[in-house]
Structure formats: C-alpha cells, structure tokens
C-alpha cells in the first residue's frame, strides 16, 4: 500500500547551511507519528516543508503517490495537509465560529447560521468550545481545539502539530490525547513534534528521531524506551554531558552576595506581584511554561519594558533601588539581558561579527571613546571569538551567515563585553545546534564560577535541572516555588509550574 505522505531525500538549506538533509520518511494512513529531536534538529523545518510554509531545496514530497508542489500553506491545506502551530494562527478578535469559517465566508455573511453550523460541527468532534466566544478569551487548550477543528473542517488528511502540549495543563493534555485518538479513528494521520518523550511513547504508533537535520531512526514505538530515544537524539557521546543531571551528582555553588532582589513587581496582566532574588556566583534558573511571565519579569529587571507605575513593586540592584524605563541605564549599572529571540532583538543583520561585538563595547559604561579605531574592534572580535569559540571564517563575516549556535554566541559576546555584574540568559539554547549547546552551557557555568550573578530562563527541564544552583518556578506571572539545585526533580518542578 502506498503511504499517505512520503518524503524522498528531502533537503532544505538556509544560505547553503542544511537544516534538513536527505530525509526519507513515509507516513501511513491513520497513524500517529512522533517526530523527536533536539532543538535545531530539523523537526519544524521538515514538517513546514510538507505544509507548504517553507520551500524545499532538493528532493520530493509525495501525497498518496502524487508529487506535491505548492507555494503556500493555504495551497497545502486545500490538498489536505494542515499544520497547527505553537503560536496559534487564529484571529484573536474574532469569535470561534468566525475563525472556523475564515476564508470560506459567503458574500452575504450572516452570523446566526454560522454559529449554528459551528456549534453542530464542534459537537460532532466532541469539543467543549462555545462558538460565539472570542478567541482572545479562550485558554491555550481551547484555542488548540479550534485550530484542530478548523483543520478537520477543511478535510485535512494529515494534521501536523508543532509542540502541541507545551502550553497545556495535565488535564488539558489528557483531552488532547483523546482528541488525537478520535482523529485517528476518522482516518487522519497525525504528525506531532514534541520535546516530551513520555507523551511520544504513550500516544504515537511510530517514532522518528532527527539529529542535526538527518534522520537517525524510524521505528515502531514499542521498540523504544526513554533511554534509547535520548541516546539517539543527542548521540552517545553527548548524552552524559547534557542530560546527566538525574543521578544528582552535581555540585551546587554556595550563595554569594545578593545582587538582585525583586519585590512585589507587577506589570499589566503578565507579571503579578512577583518576588525573587539572585546571588553572585550562582546560576539561578527560572522555569515556567509559556505565559508564566518569566521573560517579562527579566525584561522589567533589565529595563526593556517598564513595570506598573502604581503598585509596581521594588527592584533592588545590590542595595540600590532601581526603576529603569529604558535598557541603557540598566546596562550602565551592569545588567545584561541576552534575549530569547535573537532574530528580533539580538543580532544586527548588516553587521559583521566584529562590528556587532563592538556595538556592545561602545554601549557599555566603561567605554569613553568618541572616535573609534578599527584595530580595537578587531582585537575585541579576536578575543571573544576565541573565548566563546565562535566558528566563523573571519570576524568580518556577517552575523546573519553564521549558524544559530554561533549567532547566539555573538549575542552573548555582545553582552559579556559590557562586563556585567548580573547577566540574564533568556532561553540561551533555543534554536542552537547540539554541539553549541554544551559550549554555551560551559560559558554560563564559567561566568557563575567567576562570580557573576547569572539568571537563566529556560522552558527545557533538563537544562534547568542540570545548570541551576537554585531553581525558581514561575506560574501565571509570579515566582511560586524555589528549589535547591540538588533537591529538585523534574516531577516537583513540573508540579509547581502547572498547578
């Protein structure tokens, strides 16, 4: 029998750098297929090619034996391939029913029949969602249901989920799994990308593991267990280094001087009355699900966004009470923020490695120069490329042409060159290749050993567990729990984060 969807030696390159390399994979009808792999392994890229979001560089994708060539997600959807994104693609200001029928409205679009049809349709799927509710008012799980309903309504034969459970509570997850079962019964194939191995083991029929853009293994789920998946994901040599935190052998650094203390800080609906502290010579890890206000809290501390004017709380740097309206004065006080989104807030597209690092130096408090010397930028670049092991042909290469990991190292160098006393890493290894993850972790450890106060925000549990001396857990805009690095376990952190 011909598989429903087949990848044949598919390759995708960005600027000549392969993100997916010669992957051949087939999905049969009605199966649940889990795609696993580290950050940057190529899972998203692979599925995005099937959903028409990104074009293919080489190779073929066949749908029921027929070669696919489409230029847009809408085109893919028409052929029966739907992708449900992490950041949902619903229009928040419209109602559920309007979102369901978006793009298929009649010229004279009456709402009442729309609501009735939507109600019947949602009921047939057994989704408890009110079709007249605004999407903005829905929780993550319900939004996802709407997305799925939309895909089903368009007769999608293959539904691709990108990290569907990351934002869900355990109960919602249970609903989601049932939903996948129901999709399967209807004959839909499901591909889902996940970081949660247990989920993949529980609900999938087959598992494919990618590493560095290449397919490592595809097999029946029953033939895998947690350990074999991990070793396939990271390669044997790295697994100990990256995920060795479980046996509790790691040492916890002692408290230094209190560098940062945040008391009752609030900002809009995202940060609610949160309090915590960070100490010199330690890595303070902050874990939380999306929407827990971690990034916003970090941005308040570093002045990227302002806290509330009234009842905004107090931020103390050392013993000084500070309230930053812009990042420039916080940089002057020795706070560096390494962003989670380097494309948007991290790198300068037109600049070379040397120029980027130089900007950091020029903006730092110690720099008094007015007129610049070219040699200084070169020396800086040489020092930092060596110290952080930035792999670029030369320091005159544009940052945009480097791999994700090396871009991230440039962003880190740009912050470190300012000689901060407090450095906040927001998802330091997001979109970073496997080899570079270990190197970035080593840099973070080195900084803490040198006596800096390091705050590391991450939604990746092994990273938090393995790196942090103290672990703070954020939920709904505040820090709700604190663990010492040696007593925390995945279970109790997760428990604090979701309940």
């Amino acid at each position, binding site marked *: 029998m011909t598989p429903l969807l087949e990848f044949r030696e598919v390759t995708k390159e*960005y*600027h000549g*750098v392969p*993100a*997916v390399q010669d992957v051949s994979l087939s999905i049969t009808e009605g199966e649940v297929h889990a795609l696993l792999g580290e950050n*940057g*392994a*190529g899972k*998203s*890229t692979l599925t*995005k090619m099937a959903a028409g979001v*990104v*074009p293919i560089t080489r190779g073929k994708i066949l749908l029921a034996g027929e070669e696919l060539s489409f230029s847009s997600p809408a085109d893919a959807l028409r052929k029966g391939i739907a992708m449900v994104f992490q950041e949902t693609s619903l229009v928040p200001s419209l109602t559920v029913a309007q979102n369901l029928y978006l793009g298929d409205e009649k010229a004279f679009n009456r709402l009442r029949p729309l609501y009735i049809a939507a109600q019947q349709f949602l009921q047939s799927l057994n989704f408890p969602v009110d079709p007249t509710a605004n999407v903005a008012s829905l929780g993550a799980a319900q939004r996802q249901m709407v997305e799925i309903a939309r895909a089903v309504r368009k007769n999608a034969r293959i539904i691709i989920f990108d990290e569907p459970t990351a934002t869900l509570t355990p109960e919602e997850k249970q609903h989601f799994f049932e939903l996948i079962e129901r999709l399967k019964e209807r004959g839909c194939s499901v591909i889902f990308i996940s970081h949660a191995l247990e989920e993949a083991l529980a609900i999938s029929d087959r598992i494919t593991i990618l590493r560095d*853009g290449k397919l490592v293994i595809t097999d029946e789920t029953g033939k895998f267990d947690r350990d074999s998946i991990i070793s396939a994901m990271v390669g044997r040599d790295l697994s100990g280094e990256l995920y060795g935190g479980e046996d509790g052998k790691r040492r916890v650094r002692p408290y230094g001087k209190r560098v940062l203390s945040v008391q009752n800080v609030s900002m809009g609906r995202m940060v609610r009355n949160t309090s915590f502290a960070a100490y010199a010579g330690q890595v303070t890890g902050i874990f939380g699900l999306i929407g827990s206000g971690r990034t916003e809290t970090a941005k308040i501390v*570093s002045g*990227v966004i302002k806290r509330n004017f009234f009842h905004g709380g107090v931020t103390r740097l050392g013993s000084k009470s500070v309230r930053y309206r*812009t*990042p*420039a004065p*916080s*940089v*002057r006080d020795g706070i560096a*923020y390494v*962003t989670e989104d380097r*494309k*948007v*807030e*991290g*790198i*300068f*597209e*037109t*600049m070379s490695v040397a*120029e980027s690092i*130089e*900007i*950091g130096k*020029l*903006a*730092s408090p110690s*720099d008094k*120069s*007015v*007129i*610049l010397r070219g040699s200084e930028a070169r020396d800086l670049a040489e020092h930092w490329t060596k110290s952080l092991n930035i792999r670029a042909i030369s320091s005159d290469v*544009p940052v*945009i042409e*480097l*791999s*994700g990991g090396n*871009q991230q190292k440039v962003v880190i160098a*740009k*912050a470190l060159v*300012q000689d901060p006393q407090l450095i906040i890493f927001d998802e330091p290894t997001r*979109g970073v290749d496997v080899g570079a993850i270990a190197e970035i972790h080593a840099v973070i450890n080195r900084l803490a050993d040198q006596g800096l106060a390091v705050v590391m925000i991450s939604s990746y549990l092994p990273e938090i567990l393995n790196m942090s001396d103290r672990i703070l857990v954020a939920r709904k805009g505040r820090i709700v729990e604190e663990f010492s690095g040696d007593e925390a376990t995945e279970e109790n952190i997760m428990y604090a984060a979701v309940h």
Partner: protein
Amino acid sequence: MRPIGLNLLRSRKMGTQEMIVFLIFVALFAGFSVFLPGFLNANNIALLLQAVSVLGILSVAMGVIVIGGAIDLSIVALMAMSVAWTLQLINGGMPVPAALAIGLASVALVGLINGFLVAYVEIPPLFSTLATAGCIYGFGRFVLISQDTVYLPTNLGVIEELGKGRVFGVPMPVIVFAVIAAVVGLLLKYTKFGRFTYAAGDNRAAARITGVPVRPLIVAQFVLSAFIAFIAGLVQATAINSMNTRITDSLLVYEIILVVVLGGIGLSGGKGGIRNVVVGTLLIGTFLNGMTIMDIQFTTQNAIKGLILLTAIVIDQIVNPRDEQTSQQGDI
C-alpha cells in the same frame, strides 16, 4: 530562491550596487556629452554642479536619517522657510550674525520636534515629518514671511561666497558639498554616534537592549540633518540670489529620496554610507540636467522622475527586504 543576480547585489557593503550606479552615471555623462549640444560647456557644467551640490547636501542629511531607520519629508520645507526667514530678518535690518543665529536656532528646534515625535511619541516618521512639513510651511508663510520669494540682502559679505565663490576655479557649492559629505562620512564611520546610527537603523530593538540610547540618538540625527538643511538653503539662496518658499511644493524631496535609494542606502535602514549618496547625487544631477537641456516639459519630467523613484523603491524592497523572515536562518 532569490535570483542569482539579486544575491550578487545583496553582497557585502553594497559595493556592487554602488558600482552599477556609478557606471550608469559615467555612461549617461558620456552620452549626454556626445549627443546633447550644450551639455559639455563650462556654463552648463557650472550650473549642473551648483544644482547637484544643493541636492547632494540635502541628500547627505537625508542619508543620515535613512541609515538611522527613519525618513524626513520636512527637510525641504525646513530649508526653504528657515533660510527665507533669516534673509527677511536681515532685509528688515537685523545684523547678519544675529539673524543667522536665529535661523540656526529655529532649525534646531524643528529638528528637536521631529526627533521627539519619531523617537518618544513613536509616530512613524513618514507621517510625522509630512505633518511637520505642512506646519513649517504654513506657519512660516502665515506668521514669519510676507512674500513667496525673499531676495538676497546686499550686506551678507562672506556668506554670499557660499553660493557664488570659487576656490581654484571650483565653485564654492561643490566645496561645501564635499566638506559636508566628508565630515558626515567620517562621523558615520569613525564615531560612536555613527556606529550607533547603523546599529539602531539595522535593528532598533537589539540596539536598545544592548544599551544604545536609541531615542536621544534619533533626536540627534534629526537635529544634525536640520543643520545641514540650513546650510544647503544658504548655498541655494546665495547662488541664485533669492529663496523661493514655493520650492516646498516641488518634487525636490522626492529627488532627495531618489538619490538616497538609488545610491544604495536601503530604506530599511542600517545600510550604505555617504559614498552611496555621492554616487546617487552624480547620477540624478546629471540626469535632471540632461532632461532640462533636452527641453522636456516640466510635467513630463515629473512623470519620469516619479517613475524612476517608484522603480528604485521597488528594487530596493527586493534587494533590501524589510521582512527578512524568508532569507534568514530559519528556526530549524
């Protein structure tokens, strides 16, 4: 996939586009010299250089703003009204230094207002400077200046040399253009102000997080460009013995944008440099002069200019896309 040719154009430092524009200039100049009687004579070249210089000085000012990621549509209004007012004050009996000081103070104020609106109130510069252009012209004509055209006073002294003087046979406007281009070029390349301007124009959020004082920087850019516009106005007025405030209604501001974009400073910010302005100025100046000699009707000229500007902006959008999503290292 982008066409290979465009990838070539996207290569580092815009060297290729600069080269192409320069070659077109050379070809155009040679073509006009051969086929247009009256193009290559001393009189016309002097006229061309003078016209080109004012355009060039204004384009340097615009270049700084565009590299910083904004645009200034009020630059011509500012030039015309500030200089016209200054000349009128002198005509009314005010001492020259005092009038110049008032003129400079007024452009500085407008620069501050423009910068404040863009940086602190965060209005897109396209709208805010369009509005301030209207305000400057309206306020100036209503309150400050009684006639459309203000003639040059006779007691200007050295200032008059700005437009009329020659040094070793080189017209003074050309020298002013060269000096301003050199100074601003060095400023952009070798000072903190310059590096920050590129950084903020390239990625404002990243520059801000790195600790670059983005807002004061934008204000400084607008003040700097306002000063340069004032100098351009003095050169213009002294060269042709008057300042016609109606120039505000002309297509001059689009010619300036044309020079900047065509020269290779992408409207998306952070790209290009003063060399691009010089190359763009040479090409557009020659082109405009050629059209005048060919006696092409004013309206036809405008249509041609508009068409070229449109083409240049479309090409700029393709060569320097604002949304880099598709051409970046994707989230893998």
